[in-house]
């Protein structure tokens, strides 16, 4: 039972990161039907920006909270700009071109970001200064650290903010309209280019926040850290019904839990196989994901 609770706590922590990243995948897919392979690497860049900030200011003896806030804001700002630049340079010109061209462009951007980080920070691990307290509290014998709680709460708050933004504001409505029918949205006076750019901004900012939190929490980061987590986050986006924001959040936590339980009860060697196995099983019975709507084609 204690082990079970421990896996649950760990799973929710991993799930927080996955859900934040999955949101970016699902938003971008929803709006331009692109599997943005570079998204995991945007997360990685966020993590490295946070690393640069924390390593620099840690000598200043600032309060921990201030360091965290500054690092996160810096990481989010950097990835936000990066997302907009990527979209403008590598995707925007290809929006109306053969569909796979933009996919290959995304793969190119992904590789370029990884190689850029490798050249800048080296191929080995870089370590965040360990500033987070390791203390915590006990739930039924399982240890939950305050850091884990912080990650969980902060992620939920950001997700809630995004959800409200998309559901309640005119800009969010424009995004949803665009996701349904780009041409109709354009005819209704929505600035399509700017809305797409905004979507990339939001998705990238969330990934950047996840990147900085990941570095603060796990300490060690490297240039290909975005690959494995990106793959799982994308799996979560699909599992939740791609294009569906609440679906991506729930499925992000779900994949985190599957990974944690599989690590604990089976072996971490098999975890990815288990995750993909679950995905395939779900898609066979629910072809558009857990929360995806059944698409009825009109003929």
């Amino acid at each position, binding site marked *: 039972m204690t082990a079970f609770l421990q896996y649950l706590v760990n799973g929710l922590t991993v799930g927080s990161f996955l859900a934040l990243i999955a949101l970016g995948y699902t938003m971008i897919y929803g709006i331009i039907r692109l599997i943005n392979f570079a998204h995991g690497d945007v997360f990685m860049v966020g993590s490295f920006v946070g690393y640069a900030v924390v390593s620099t200011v840690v000598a200043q003896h600032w309060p921990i909270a201030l360091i965290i806030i500054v690092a996160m804001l810096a990481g989010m700002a950097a990835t936000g700009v990066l997302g907009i630049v990527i979209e403008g340079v590598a995707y925007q010109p290809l929006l109306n071109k053969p569909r*796979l061209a*933009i996919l*290959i462009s995304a*793969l*190119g951007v992904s590789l370029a970001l990884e190689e850029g980080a490798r050249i800048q920070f080296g191929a080995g691990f870089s370590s965040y200064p360990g500033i987070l307290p390791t203390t915590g509290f006990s739930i039924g014998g399982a240890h939950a650290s305050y850091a884990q709680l912080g990650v969980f709460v902060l992620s939920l708050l950001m997700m809630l903010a995004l959800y409200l933004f998309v559901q309640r504001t005119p800009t969010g409505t424009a995004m949803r309209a665009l996701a349904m029918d780009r041409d109709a949205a354009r005819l209704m006076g929505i600035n399509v280019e700017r809305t797409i750019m905004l979507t990339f901004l939001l998705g990238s900012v969330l990934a950047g926040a996840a990147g900085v939190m990941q570095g603060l929490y796990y300490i060690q980061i490297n240039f290909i850290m975005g690959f494995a987590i990106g*793959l799982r986050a994308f799996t979560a986006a*699909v599992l939740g019904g791609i294009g569906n924001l609440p679906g991506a959040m729930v499925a992000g936590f779900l994949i985190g839990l599957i990974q944690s339980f599989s690590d604990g009860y089976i072996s971490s060697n098999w975890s990815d196989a288990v995750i993909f*196995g679950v995905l*395939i099983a779900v898609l066979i019975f629910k072809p558009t994901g857990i929360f995806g709507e059944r698409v009825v084609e009109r*003929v």
Partner: protein
Amino acid sequence: MALANALRRGISTESPQTRLALRASITLAACVIALLIPQFLGDYAMSVAVTVVTYAILGLGLNVVVGYAGLLDLGYAAFFAIGAYTSALLELHFSLSFWEALPIAIVAAAVAGCIIGYPTLRLRSDYLAIVTLGFGEIVRITVTNLNVTGGPNGLYGIPPAGVFGHSIVSTNGLYYLGLFFMVLAIAFTGLLSRSRLGRAWRSLREDETASEAVGVPAIKVKLMAYVMGAIVGAIAGMLFAARFGTIDPTSFTYNTSVMILIVVIVGGMGSIPGMLLGAIIVIALPELLRSVSNYRMLFFALALVALMLVRPEGLLPPRRTRRGAYRAQPPPDEAPSSPAPAGRRRPGRGELLLQVTDVSHRFGGVRAVDGVSFDVHAGEIVSVIGPNGAGKTTVFNCITGLVTPRSGDVRLGGTRSLRGVKPHKVVRLGLARTFQGIRLFDGLDAVENCLVGLIAHQSRMLSLGGLLSRTTREDRARAMYWLDFVGLADRGHLLASELSYGERRRLEIARALMSEPQLLLLDEPAAGTNPTEKRELMSLVKQVRDTGVAVVLIEHDMGLVMELSDRVIVLDQGRIIAAGEPQQVRDDPRVIDAYLGREEDDDPDAGKSVEEVLGWRS
């Protein structure tokens, strides 16, 4: 690049003979260069060349899946791995030679293709992509964790391939062996692309629903794409294992799948020369960038983005085949239907063809079709009319298998039930249709659009003989006959997207007629056409009827309906409110109400069935 463009422009304006000669000489030059390369390159460069050849084979295989069938596969390296591991295990544990292991590895990959494909092919595009990615990862994780595959260390001591008693270990020998299989792969995939199966793939890529509705068995055809791709990938895997004598899971990662996909897209999806060029670029370009060692992959990545921005369709996309020969070819005098295909009988006039009994269907809470019954007999034209939203198209969808009705039955010839029969089988049984919003295969020319309609008869297509068989002269003659029938004899070589609106309507009818139906369902064939075109279309419908095909059509133009139809069925809110001869229906007060609205709801016959009201049932 500019040179290539100029060259292509030059090619397309030349006569077919010149073009053919140019193509032949380019091919010949490429062959000579490929054969002579070992004379000029050193050992290291040659080992790069062997890798290029391996990736060219992989590209050719993935091209079948992505380029021909239009299915995004992000886990293609799985088949590469299955070929490599299967052959290595057979050679190590059962002492089979390379050539003995070859057929077994091919079968193993084909089976894996089926296993991966079957449960997932019902998924649409991007969901399918992530599932293929998942399967690729599962295969890699499995070989990493099993003892029999040597775990993370992999397998070693794999014997090299032998030819005439000589072990092929030299780089040059491996190069020629690879070249041999590459030529085989080119021939194989080239044949596939020209075969009936290839045409079925192209139609699926263009419009899946439409191709099912004209008789293409979508799931089987997609599965064949996976199987064919898997076979080619497995051969590349065997070569890889025989080359290095050792394999481990790191050679078969997601990155490998991505590299192969890049070969396909950079080269130009669907083009065989494109795959060769793509492999050269993806493998040789990073090697050429060795001078900037630490930055070479960064430059490669940026080059990839730049390349896509400049040429999103790839470097050598398939040339659009304008077969000008069609223009000169006169339609055959004889009706092509004289050798009636596979047991298709021409029904006698007045014979019962279709019996729709009490069919109902709902979407959510909306009763789209509510207890509809009617019959259709050979040689008649039946019109289905009614206000928008009356359920007319849904009735068609229930009949053709696109929708399975909640209740009720549809019988063909009064006996065979069509309930739950897949759309492509309904076509084979003699029931063809067109769509309200025209659904043609826009990227195919008019003749090819028609030829897809012929697939309904080629049920042996999935046997090995039928698989690779090319289009026969008779097939083309038949396509030309129906194109001529609808008045498009001189349009055969044009892409469907290049035709005018009215021509597209008529092409869709020709495509449906290719399956030699007993019954043709036309969903608003004259919608959006001008009065002249409308009149032409209606005389076409009469001509179709005169060939012995019964026609059911949905139409809004009352004048035309009254003039053309033998019988008229009026639908309103999912129910038949009137049915009978045009004159009879026109005077029916319910019909007038349905179209003009009624003042008060005092219909004494509400709740009674049509048969009771009209006493009609033949």
